[in-house]
């Protein structure tokens, strides 16, 4: 048993205060302590991207952070992407409509990565999308439909942002 610390953080807009072992990774904290199992563990050494979350709006591999490092910060996980329980985010709709997932294991990490990317690059080229997701591995799809879904999502988000005449 190692040292414990009490941390306070916001996850998907909800504030949590918990006591954690200092060696607990952020990914394990999110999954086991908070029960948010949408964030997946694919490799636990920072290469697959399945554990990607947004920390203060910036994508990060949660398996490469300690939970104690998130004290005082804001986290977005895949569970926080949909605007409500019965409405999907346009990015999620684009993935559904374009067969952008097969088994779905890599998908949460790809969605959070794309939330950041499309926010900062609302009108990307295909090449830019491919580079943006290069830190996320997928074993099923061959990536093609993921890229198509991302480009489709960009269009949907732009249409949403532009007020209709």
């Amino acid at each position: 048993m190692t040292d414990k610390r009490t941390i306070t953080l916001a996850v998907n807009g909800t504030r949590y205060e918990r006591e954690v072992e200092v060696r607990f990774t952020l990914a394990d904290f999110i999954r086991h302590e908070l029960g948010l199992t949408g964030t997946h563990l694919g490799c636990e050494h920072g290469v697959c991207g399945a554990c990607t979350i947004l920390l203060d709006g910036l994508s990060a591999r949660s398996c490469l952070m300690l939970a104690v490092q998130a004290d005082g910060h804001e986290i977005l996980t895949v569970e926080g992407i949909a605007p409500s329980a019965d409405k999907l985010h346009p990015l999620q709709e684009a993935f559904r409509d374009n067969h952008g997932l097969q088994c779905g294991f890599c998908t949460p990490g790809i969605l959070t990565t794309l939330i950041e990317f499309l926010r900062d690059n609302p009108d990307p080229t295909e090449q830019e999308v491919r580079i943006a997701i290069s830190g996320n591995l997928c074993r099923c799809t061959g990536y093609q439909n993921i890229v198509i879904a991302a480009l489709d999502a960009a269009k949907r988000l732009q249409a949403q942002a532009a007020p209709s005449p």
Partner: protein
Amino acid sequence: MKPPPFQYYDPRTLADVVGLLGRLENAKLLAGGQSLMPMLNMRFVLPDHVIDLNRVDGLSYIRERDRALEIGAMTRQRDLEFSDVVRARCPLVHEAILEVGHRQTRNRGTIGGSLCHLDPAAELVSVAAALDATVTVAGPNGTREIAFADFPVAYMSPAIEPQEVLTEVRIPTWPPGHGYAFVEFSRRHGDFAIVSAAALIEADGSGKISRASVTLGGMGQGPVRARDVEQALLGQAPNEDLFREVCESCRAIEAMDDIHASAGYRQHLAAVLARRALTKAAARLQAAPSMH
């Protein structure tokens, strides 16, 4: 794959960091975590103490002073990537940083962490060598500076004492209009470079090369300055045939054999990538005489 038990510290000042390093045995410094955390998760390292640098004040900055960029050790790679002053004054760093890992790793990874980790294929390590950077370390006896050429002492081992911490990297800038290029070969975008080449050139009023820096990464345990190539370029007008000829000497650079490539293939890549980097650098070289 979970980290082993350790004591955790999150100091707020550099003095606290030095104090902790002074009294703790078997301690590891945690910067961006993109290299240390995988090692902890796989239990390749078993420190008794982890000193987290992420809440230390005053280690993250980018300043221009005396024809150099001074960069705090905890400056995130992301901040380097989006920094206007880095892009303007040190475009080689900007071009190289786009090859470092991925968005997620650059959001957390730091320049200090990368330099201290000294992965043989690390892009930031290569450009630090290319630019003749100097690093500052702080320890119980104060601070000292280490020329980057002297920084790597062995495979993934920097010339830092156990009780010291890297605080700053100082990168002398090349004059505006200088030619620069960073190229690398890897199987996929974002992978470690199998071989990389960094080129910097400056020309005099008559368009002849007055200064050159050519650095190969990924060949052996650290970046290699191709001094023969640099020498051969001086006084010459930049052109493709010249580059092709002088870069042949890169085939003689000692290289390692591993699962990614044979030594021979690395040497071939060195000659080719050095030539490509020089060609790209020459294209970017501005015709005006250097004004500094």
